[in-house]
């Protein structure tokens, strides 16, 4: 935790789908500029949690406040990076990236300059007029990220954004995200099922437990920044990964078994 002001504050948040209790009584606070990862076995409600913060889903009980304002629905103060890139195939990269400002009536020459800067930041300078189908999966995920950054969100929500990428592209995207984050110091909520990814990127990690989904433990990652990829081979790093893995191992085992036995 830092002394930075509170960005997101979640209070007694619960969510049920019919009789299924997906999230139970989640209470936490996230400071401005923090990079938070959420890990946990599949089905523990990570996506649901992110969608509630994003305003795409309503909480059954409790609520969340962003910069002191209660979250009632979606809005341009949050940027959502989805698991699939979800680029609009009929728009070129530039107008895909600008769709957030466009929807919020904020298109302007300054915005255009900012969009171009973001595309450069994610390494896609020169691709403005390409269509999504002309780009590789990794490049499309960069557009996905630039699009979320284009609304200059107070909070960046990322749901397993690299899970569809191959291992090498994924590692490169991790270093890129780390670099981009260090330039802007946005507050980030990052969901992943890859523990080393979470440790590499985060200031703190929320370990979720399942049935019902809740925060099991919060781990401070005390590693220096900027973090080179080689940090993944240091003993401290490996210790963190082992520790978190032990925390969720049992849960994951159960969830895998349940998936296989139905």
């Amino acid at each position, binding site marked *: 935790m830092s002394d930075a002001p509170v960005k997101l504050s979640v209070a007694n948040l619960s969510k049920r789908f019919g009789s299924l209790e997906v999230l139970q009584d989640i209470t936490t606070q996230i400071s401005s500029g923090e990079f938070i990862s959420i890990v946990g076995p599949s089905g523990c409600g990570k996506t649901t949690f992110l969608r509630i913060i994003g305003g*795409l889903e309503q909480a059954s009980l409790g609520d969340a406040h962003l910069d002191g304002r209660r979250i009632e629905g979606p809005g341009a103060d949050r940027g*959502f990076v989805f698991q699939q890139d979800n680029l609009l195939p009929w728009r070129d990269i530039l107008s895909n990236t600008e769709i957030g400002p466009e929807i919020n009536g904020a298109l302007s020459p300054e915005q255009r300059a900012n969009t171009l800067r973001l595309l450069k930041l994610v390494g896609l300078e020169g691709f403005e007029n390409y269509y999504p189908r002309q780009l590789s999966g990794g490049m499309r995920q960069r557009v996905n990220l630039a699009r979320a950054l284009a609304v200059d969100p107070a909070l960046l929500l990322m749901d397993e954004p690299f899970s569809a990428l191959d291992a090498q592209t994924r590692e490169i995207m991790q270093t890129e995200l780390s670099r981009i984050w260090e330039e802007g110091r946005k507050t980030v909520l990052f969901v992943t099922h890859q523990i080393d990814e979470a440790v590499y990127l985060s200031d703190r990690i929320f370990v979720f437990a399942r049935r019902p989904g809740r925060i099991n433990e919060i781990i401070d990652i005390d590693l220096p920044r900027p973090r080179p990829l080689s940090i993944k081979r240091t003993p401290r790093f490996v210790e963190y990964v082992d520790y978190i893995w032990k925390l969720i191992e049992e849960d994951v085992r159960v969830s895998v078994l349940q998936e296989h036995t139905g």
Partner: protein
Amino acid sequence: MWRASSTLTCCPNENQTASQSGEPAMTQSNAVSATGGMAKAPSFAASLGDFFYQRRWSWGSVFIGLALWEFISRVIVGSKLFLAAPTQVVYALVDLSGSGEMGKHVWTSTLEFLLGYGVACVLGVALGFVMASSKAGKQALQPWVAGLYATPTVALAPLFILWFGIGILSKVVVVAVLVIFPVTINTETGLRATPTQLVETVRAFGASSRQIFFKVSLPSALPFIFAGFRLGIGRGLIGVVVAELFGARAGLGQLISQSAETFNMPNLFAGVTVLAAAGIAMTGGFAWLEEKLLPWRD
């Protein structure tokens, strides 16, 4: 671009190499195909020769077909009352055009087609929208749309002429009835096929339902809607001709039926030839238009 980082322990894959050098190398094939014909400018004669050479089997087949037709009609049938030879059709076309008669027929049919087709496209898209966005609308319209699409409604042409007279109105109605259903069905299908993740994505940015419709649903449905328009061309042409056959003052269908009554085969075939050309031109023009308007498709 990429920060040259000593932390890269693995080789970046090809795409990253491409963006590293700042050149869109991986998509070069696309870029080249986009400017395909402009790479070098061959002489007009050479490209014309190429045009014929590339399609030599098509040209040959068409030429042989016409020659056979000419031979059969002049030597085997030998009577203009039953079959006109291609050369006779060409003469008839020239004659009819020179006298202004062809112009009158083409103008009438074109007007009927465009009015009926235009009305059907607008109404069809509107109906498709209602069916896609309202459950009540879907339930109320579905039996009519499905039933009338399956019915050969062209058989109702005599009825429409009875109701709306032998002027152009009855033809406009027939064309509209034939064209509207494929447009409606395709619009509905296209709007329903809008990927929900794309809708979610713009919703996450705070898009209103109006914005969702115009920025996601409609563009995503456009290829379907265009396919409906394309289907409508053939059906609309059939509508014009059949409706005119049952009674009209002018139009290509009227030219054909009148020529049949007077055993004027060259004029009859001249009418059919113009219709065929119109069908080919419109379908081809449409494919071109789709390419221009929907360049993002594969």
